[in-house]
């Protein structure tokens, strides 16, 4: 369960006006719901995700996960409840460590670490089993440095890592955007399977209108720091990529009108 209340993040360029990247946004995600977030460039969707993950500070509002107020928590502390997969596989996995060692770090997510052996046989067996279940063949590569794998394979391992212990919230930050189409498909399928099997509460940001239309139980369209569209259930299932493209076009046209109006006003008063 994710509960975002009145979240606001403001930036100001030196000498420039204050821009609200996230502007008084509130929404809840019930347990077991898979929410897809789309938005135009600079819409604030990445900032919103960062505010939930703890990489961006909220100027106002709060973030609750599973009943805990995480607003003042640092990023690494939030890992107790949140699992994350990044856009860049290089950011979410440690290249010089083996696949199994990466998984070992994930197996300690949000728990204190001690001097126990990081990769006992029990972990190896479970890692092999979980990897084989999601992409057969990966289980034979446990001892390879993860940096030697392709981006798609790394993202699959990153997904397994983020969900090794069932997170209260899974955050997916355009996690297929850096991949070739075939790998992206495999990662999308793996994501859908993991979310379904573990009944995860998940928030996925994507640029792909196909993914936005085809995945998830609910869709949020973020525009200019606000949620411009929030559909679920039958309405979500009926959404097509073309519908979404049409919505984007209308939003962009409205923006241009706004910009033209602003220019006219500036010219008048300057």
């Amino acid at each position, binding site marked *: 369960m994710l509960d975002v209340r009145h979240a606001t993040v403001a930036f100001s360029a030196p000498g420039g006006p204050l821009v609200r990247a996230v502007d008084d946004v509130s929404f809840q995600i019930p347990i077991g719901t898979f929410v897809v977030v789309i938005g135009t460039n600079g819409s604030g969707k990445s900032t919103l995700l960062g505010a939930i993950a703890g990489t961006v500070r909220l100027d106002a509002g709060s973030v609750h996960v599973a009943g805990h107020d995480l607003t003042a928590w640092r990023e690494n502390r939030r890992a107790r409840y949140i699992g994350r997969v990044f856009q860049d596989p290089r950011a979410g996995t*440690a290249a010089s460590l083996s696949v199994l060692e990466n998984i070992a770090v994930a197996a300690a997510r949000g728990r204190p670490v001690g001097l126990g052996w990081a990769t006992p046989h029990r972990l190896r067996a479970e890692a092999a089993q979980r990897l084989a279940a999601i992409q057969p063949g990966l289980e034979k590569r446990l001892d390879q440095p993860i940096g030697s794998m392709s981006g798609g394979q790394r993202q699959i391992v990153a997904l397994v890592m983020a969900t090794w212990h069932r997170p209260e919230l899974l955050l997916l930050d355009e996690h297929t955007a850096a991949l070739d189409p075939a790998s992206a498909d495999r990662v999308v399928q793996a994501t859908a399977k993991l979310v379904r099997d573990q009944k995860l509460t998940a928030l996925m940001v994507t640029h792909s209108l196909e993914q936005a239309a085809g995945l998830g139980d609910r869709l949020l369209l973020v525009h200019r720091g606000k949620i411009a569209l929030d559909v679920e259930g039958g309405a979500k299932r009926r959404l097509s990529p073309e519908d979404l493209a049409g919505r984007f076009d209308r939003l962009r046209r409205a923006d241009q009108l706004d910009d033209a109006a602003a220019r006219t006003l500036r010219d008048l008063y300057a």
Partner: protein
Amino acid sequence: MITLLATWTFGVTLALVALGVFVSYRLFSFPDITTDGSFTLGAVTTTVLLVAGHDPAVATLGGAAAGAAAGACTGLLHAILRIEPLLSGILVTTALSSVNLVVLGRSNVPLAGTATLLDRAEAFLLPATTAAGFGDAAAEAARLIVMLALVGIAVLLLWVFFRTNLGTAMRAGGDTATMARALGRDTGLLTVAGLAIANALTALSGALVAQVQGFADVQMGIGMVVWGMASVFLGAALVGPVRLGGALVATVAGSITFRLLVASALRAGLHPDWLKAATALVVLAALVAPRLFSRRPQASAAR
């Protein structure tokens, strides 16, 4: 024979510096200038403790502990005050040059007449090395064996530690901080711990070098970070891409090889004044060579 053994002994002892630089630079990508100061700190702390009559083992560990504290200072400057790595190390090592002078009392203190770890080891091993036919070099051979044993233990401990949960988390944090933080690790703290370990190794080396050469000098640490890097690079070049254990052993091999190269260069007529410049050139060559000879973008080998 004695000179060759002495060269080896030095190379092996300084391998601890190389291992320290391996931890800070290879595992944490942290170019840690503290190395220069903590090497001297280890030497002067141990020397002062020995002169005060403490047990050589206690004095040596005391030197290493002082180095750990210095490394932790650099780590804290970086992790808490957000000072960049190079500057953090420069600040701490600059402060340490005063600390070292104050601790030692003057710029040079001999250990003549003081029982050191080396004396103790010699007394223990001399019968064996004499029996093994080292003759005049028996004492030097005993020293070398002790140093090899100490460095062997250090490599083994490091290998085990960096495969525990904590050690693996440290390697992950040093490799990809975003990943480690997303999985709940405080990467700042891990860096502090990593630099403490690195500088404990360096200071241990300083403590042992002071006992090998029989004196401590406040200048003895100058250039140690570059020495350590040269050894790490040379070791990596000797063995190619290997995993953790191989990389640790390669680092030790790099240190010994580098020491032997230096000894040969000196014998071939290199003026000792040019030694540091030559070391810097070796490091430069090691940094540039992979870019010249490898077609692939720099691989993250030998970590």
